[in-house]
């Protein structure tokens, strides 16, 4: 198996002759260069920002300085691949919406940004000279020792050469002896380079790409896939509704119409009676199909939004329902849908179990949060976990980072509350899910 990182490589034979020492040297060398560039960049933008801050122009520059960690960390994560084959996940969340403002808001609020700024400062201030030193000691020193015969042949005119500017050799055997020593030193320094690069890589990983992040990333990915799943489920419901509406329902209407016309032509008698029966059956089938489609995904929710759909659900309730909603505009499709089905399930439970004479639905959207409450004056004692449809709905709400709570002491009253964070959208059509 190929070694995954420089530490594993060093523990094996043949390290000295492998590419790993050179990779380590390249890592340290590019580190020294990157660090120096980062230092200059940060100092220049911080100083310029600080000076110009007096006339306000500098403020964006200061913000830019605060974000300096981002590009540095990006380069560092890229460089890390030279000596570490494990994945290097970034810690940033994708911004909530496209555009510069949401991106800035997300970046400035998340911890990863400040962590990366800290890393950039440490890197620019302290680490790159260490990189430079390690590369000098580990690469240049043995190279220059090994190059003694070459020095003697060129700079020393075949008579003398200085080893590390300290010792002088004056004859060829000594020069080649020193060169042999240099090669030995190179082998030793390969380990020095490996240790330095390995330590640097570990530090970088710790600061800007901790291995825990892999777990975090997986959790994030899981959460996202859950949202996608709910959205797909939602889209599927809409598709089924549309298919039934455009297909079976239209055909049934056409059938009822044909039967209706046939009845007009049929002379009174057994045929007319049978036609009448068939006509009525077609009517019943249509009514049932309509209810079914309404249960899958009500059209009014798509066309008019949550407020109208809840009013509609209240209309259909067997128990009188007072509706008090103040939800101007539209909310994301998945939120409207989840909230609507919660209300409908709650009203169905009120009618089935509560024995209430009256129920009330209130709804507000304040401070980026949709809050809906369904209360009734029934006997209480409802249990969300007792196999009611509410458990599934609670899951659905939690996918949207929302909460569903139920308070139903014996004797009542019952209060069901759902809260979902969401922003208003001004979409005219049933649009994309709010992932």
């Amino acid at each position, binding site marked *: 198996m190929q070694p995954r990182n420089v530490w594993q490589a060093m523990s094996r034979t043949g390290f000295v002759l492998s590419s790993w020492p050179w990779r380590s040297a390249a890592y340290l060398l590019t580190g020294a260069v990157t660090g120096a560039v980062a230092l200059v960049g940060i100092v220049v933008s911080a100083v310029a920002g600080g000076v110009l801050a007096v006339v306000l122009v500098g403020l964006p520059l200061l913000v830019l300085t605060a974000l300096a960690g981002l590009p540095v960390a990006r380069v560092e994560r890229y460089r890390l691949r030279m000596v570490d084959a494990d994945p290097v996940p970034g810690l940033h969340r994708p911004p909530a919406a496209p555009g510069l403002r949401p991106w800035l808001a997300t970046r400035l609020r998340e911890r990863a940004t400040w962590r990366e700024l800290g890393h950039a400062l440490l890197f620019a201030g302290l680490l790159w000279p260490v990189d430079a030193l390690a590369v000098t000691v580990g690469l240049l020193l043995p190279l220059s020792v090994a190059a003694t015969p070459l020095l003697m042949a060129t700079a020393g005119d075949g008579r003398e050469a200085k080893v590390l500017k300290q010792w002088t050799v004056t004859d060829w055997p000594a020069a080649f002896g020193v060169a042999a020593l240099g090669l030995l030193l190179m082998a030793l320094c390969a380990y020095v380079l490996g240790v330095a690069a390995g330590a640097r890589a570990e530090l970088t990983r710790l600061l800007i790409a901790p291995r825990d992040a892999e777990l975090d990333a997986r959790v994030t990915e899981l959460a996202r896939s859950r949202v996608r799943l709910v959205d797909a489920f939602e889209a599927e419901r809409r598709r089924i509704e549309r298919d039934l509406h455009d297909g079976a329902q239209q055909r049934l*209407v056409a059938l009822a119409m044909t039967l209706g016309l046939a009845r*007009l032509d049929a002379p009174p008698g057994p045929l007319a009676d049978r036609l009448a029966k068939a006509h009525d059956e077609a009517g019943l089938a249509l009514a049932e199909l309509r209810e079914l489609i309404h249960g899958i995904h009500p*059209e009014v929710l798509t066309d008019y939004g949550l407020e109208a759909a809840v009013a509609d659900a209240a209309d259909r309730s067997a128990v009188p329902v007072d509706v008090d909603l103040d939800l101007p505009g539209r909310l994301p499709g998945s939120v409207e849908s989840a909230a609507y089905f919660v209300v409908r399930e709650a009203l169905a439970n009120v009618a089935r179990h509560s024995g209430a004479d009256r129920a009330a639905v209130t709804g507000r959207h304040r401070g980026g949060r949709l809050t809906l409450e369904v209360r009734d004056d029934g006997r209480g004692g409802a249990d969300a976990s007792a196999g009611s449809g509410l458990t599934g709905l609670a899951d659905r709400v939690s996918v949207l980072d929302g909460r569903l709570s139920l308070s139903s002491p014996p004797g009542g009253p019952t209060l069901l509350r759902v809260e979902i964070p969401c922003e208003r959208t001004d979409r005219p059509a049933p649009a994309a899910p709010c992932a």
Partner: protein
Amino acid sequence: MRTDRPPRARRSLRVVLAEDSVLLREGIVGLLDRCGHEVAAAVGDAPALVAAVEEHAPDIVVTDVRMPPGFQDEGLHAAVRLREERPALPVLVLSQYVQRAYASELLDSGDGTGVGYLLKDRVGHVEEFVDALCEVADGGTVVDPEVVRQLLRRRRDPLERLTPREREVLALIAEGRSNGAIARALVVSEAAVGKHVSGILTKLDLPPAQETHRRVLAVLAYLRA
């Protein structure tokens, strides 16, 4: 209430029909034709509906709610727009679903006369459908009994002030029936119906004005309650 006699044609209407399902469109054209009405144009989407009305200046427009291109409520919105431009144009909207929001939007357009909102199923009841069509063409207001039934379940102010009998009468008014027809349906005298109607109008705080207009307002109050 169906009989075996052929549907009566009070007068021949020129109809512009908008329905995206070819099957239904052809069916309704055949049905109207059979009942002595002329379909000037039968189209499949909302823009074509507006264009057809421009071209043919029909006696009445019959349209589906959901149509291309968006398959939402294009038909309804086209109907509302048409009525804004031509308040006298009678419009009958067919919907697969009973939706109070649709009915309100439609009845709010113009002064609420010459509009109808029916469940699509009603085209199966040929006679009732054609009666409703003529009613709307004559400036009446027709609301599907199913909408009315749904509204009756809501026991909220100001309708709570009405007696059950008055609510029944109001439901029948909403279906576009005359006092005489209501009297027949409830098997009471026409005078009794008249008393109920004035009771309703008073309880709903409707301003004294032309009787028909107040009746429409009563229906609107009913729908918006």
